[in-house]
């Protein structure tokens, strides 16, 4: 189904760098992927993989200095977001692309009521709407995300809500203008599992209900991706290492990193192993990724070529891309070396 859907967001060769004490940290170093209309697309990666910086780049929220978008295009509904001016970008944020952050504790301003903060979002994009109308739509959004007694709760401050409720409020705010794309950066990481399940259901349900909202879900949790996303990109060292429809990625992972990640997870649903299969070594800091393939220092299948030459992201079977010298590209797709 996703194969035919047109592309809503297309990222091509994105590079986002930071200046760290005179050195350049290549946090995102050539990322390519696309999110189709009405799709839930997952980006998984460990700390330092560049997944959050990718998300912030899409919204042009990279603090500058020290950061900047060095190269690449972010095409959203035909426009390149990297070329937009600040006021143009403001019109897109919230209304067309909105974002949910990891920390529901800090993403809301503690000195304003929830109602004030929700009205503020809507006012930006619909100037001239009366206070009462804004209040009504804010209350109905809170109601939709399951906050009881919504009308009265608009007068409450963020500290009067629990963590799960705050994340619901964030979702309500993010979806209040029915954006085309919702970027969710670790939306459930700070929450308990039963609340996580509630929040994911809610996000996916509301996304579907609106009829035109795609979700870009950024997480370190492979299990969450398995249960929610149609397609997924695995990032490591500021690059997409593997990308495929979710079932394909989990069913026949090609990249040694993806395979290692999946093997290192404890599987309570499978026969018990005595030991987990860990990936050796440590995740290098952004400054210390090796030359050549970013993963070769930890890769059990490394060959000499990996140290010198960085592999391209190549299509290994229809819709399945992998960045590894050892994985042969599909015969028909030898030329399609760059973008999907």
């Amino acid at each position, binding site marked *: 189904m996703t194969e035919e859907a047109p592309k809503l967001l297309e990222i091509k060769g994105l590079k986002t760098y930071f200046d760290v004490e005179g050195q350049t940290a290549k946090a995102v170093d050539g990322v390519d992927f696309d999110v189709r209309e009405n799709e839930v697309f997952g980006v998984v990666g460990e700390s330092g993989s560049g997944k959050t910086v990718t998300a912030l780049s899409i919204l042009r929220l990279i603090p500058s200095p020290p950061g900047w978008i060095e190269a690449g295009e972010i095409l959203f509904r035909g426009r390149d977001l990297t070329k937009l001016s600040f006021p143009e970008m403001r019109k897109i944020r919230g209304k067309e692309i909105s974002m949910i952050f990891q920390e529901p504790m800090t993403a809301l301003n503690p000195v304003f009521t929830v109602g004030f903060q929700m009205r503020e979002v809507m006012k930006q994009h619909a100037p001239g709407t009366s206070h009462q109308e804004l209040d009504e739509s804010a209350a109905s959004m809170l109601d939709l995300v399951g906050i009881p007694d919504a009308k009265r709760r608009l007068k409450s401050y963020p500290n009067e809500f629990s963590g799960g409720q705050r994340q619901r409020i964030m979702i309500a705010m993010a979806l209040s203008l029915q954006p085309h794309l919702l970027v969710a950066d670790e939306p459930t990481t700070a929450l308990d599992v039963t609340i996580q399940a509630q929040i994911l259901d809610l996000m996916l349900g509301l996304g579907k209900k609106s009829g035109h909202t795609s979700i870009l879900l950024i997480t370190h949790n492979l299990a969450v991706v398995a249960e929610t996303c149609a397609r997924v990109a695995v990032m490591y060292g500021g690059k997409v290492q593997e990308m495929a429809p979710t079932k394909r990625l989990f069913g026949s992972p090609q990249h040694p990193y993806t395979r290692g990640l999946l093997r290192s997870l*404890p599987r*309570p649903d499978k026969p018990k192993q005595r030991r987990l299969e860990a990936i050796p070594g440590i995740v290098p800091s952004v400054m210390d990724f090796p030359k050549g393939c970013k993963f070769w220092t930890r890769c059990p299948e490394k060959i000499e070529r990996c140290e010198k030459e960085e592999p391209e992201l190549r299509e290994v079977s229809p819709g399945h891309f992998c960045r590894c010298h050892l994985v042969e590209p599909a015969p028909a797709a030898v030329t399609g070396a760059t973008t999907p």
Partner: protein
Amino acid sequence: MTEAPLLEIKDLKIYYPVHAGVFLRKVGDVKAVDGVSLHVQRGETLGLVGESGCGKTTLGKGIMRLVKVTGGEILYRRNGEQPIDLVGLSRSELRPLRAEIQMIYQDPYSSLNPRWSVGEIVEEPLLVHKPELTAKQRQDEVAWLLEKVGLTGEQAYRYPHEFSGGQRQRVGIARALATRPRLIVADEPVSALDVSIQAQVVNLLQDLQEEFNLTIVFIAHDISVVEHIAHRIAVMYLGHVCEIGPSRDIYEKPLHPYSRALLSAVPLPDPTLERPDRIRLEGEVPSPVAKPSGCPFRTRCPLAEPACATTPPPLVEVKPGRFLACPVVARTLP
């Protein structure tokens, strides 16, 4: 069950007072741990799972006597000796026992002193508990400990900020091992680590357990990890233990309505799995200051009966090794 357990907790209560008003009068208690009974066998790993606020961390701190215990007993039994009740001990009486009971903390960033070298951090427990060692002996011991946890002796001269999260957690483990403890309380030891590093640390803990015959209380909210490492699991909710049993058993056939909901919410890394059995809990955990009467879970429980509101259900052995605090479910069991 033939051998007497190393640790036996009986009806443990840990309340934090709540003060309010101008004179900060005590207005109530946060009943963080409210009548917990369990035991841990020698060489066993007991997993404590539950959501934030369920009291699992407080229980761990209670075992360490890092918080004030309100009531109950914590019996610690050395091989073939009479049990010692840790609750009744004074600070000076506790001190020698501290060498035998050590803790590994969640946050590998804040649990290591940034001004001390890794060698000094690991050496500190030796200075306190093994004053008879010479400086040279201590140094050798530190190098040996660092190697045991997968670091090198030369790294003793480096400082915590030079290490990654996983390596710091290894330092924390080396420090805990320095006094050759029998019991280790590990509070979310892998939660702050990356997926690929988590497995390394879990494997390390299992290897060390085998080598040193350690008994571990493993506290974590990630049930998949606990299921892997623990022999038995205790599920906690609002300061109570709902259910205890062998970990595979608990995972595959949870009995308590809360454990059923909790386990069904655990996502699995397999997109082909259908999860029609998923139970969605409504609402949120009540505040531990104003806990429901009777069974703490009754306000969200699909099986709740009027009788559940009267007394908190006791933990009853429903099958050999399987303890359950829900009379409603217990009735339906053969």
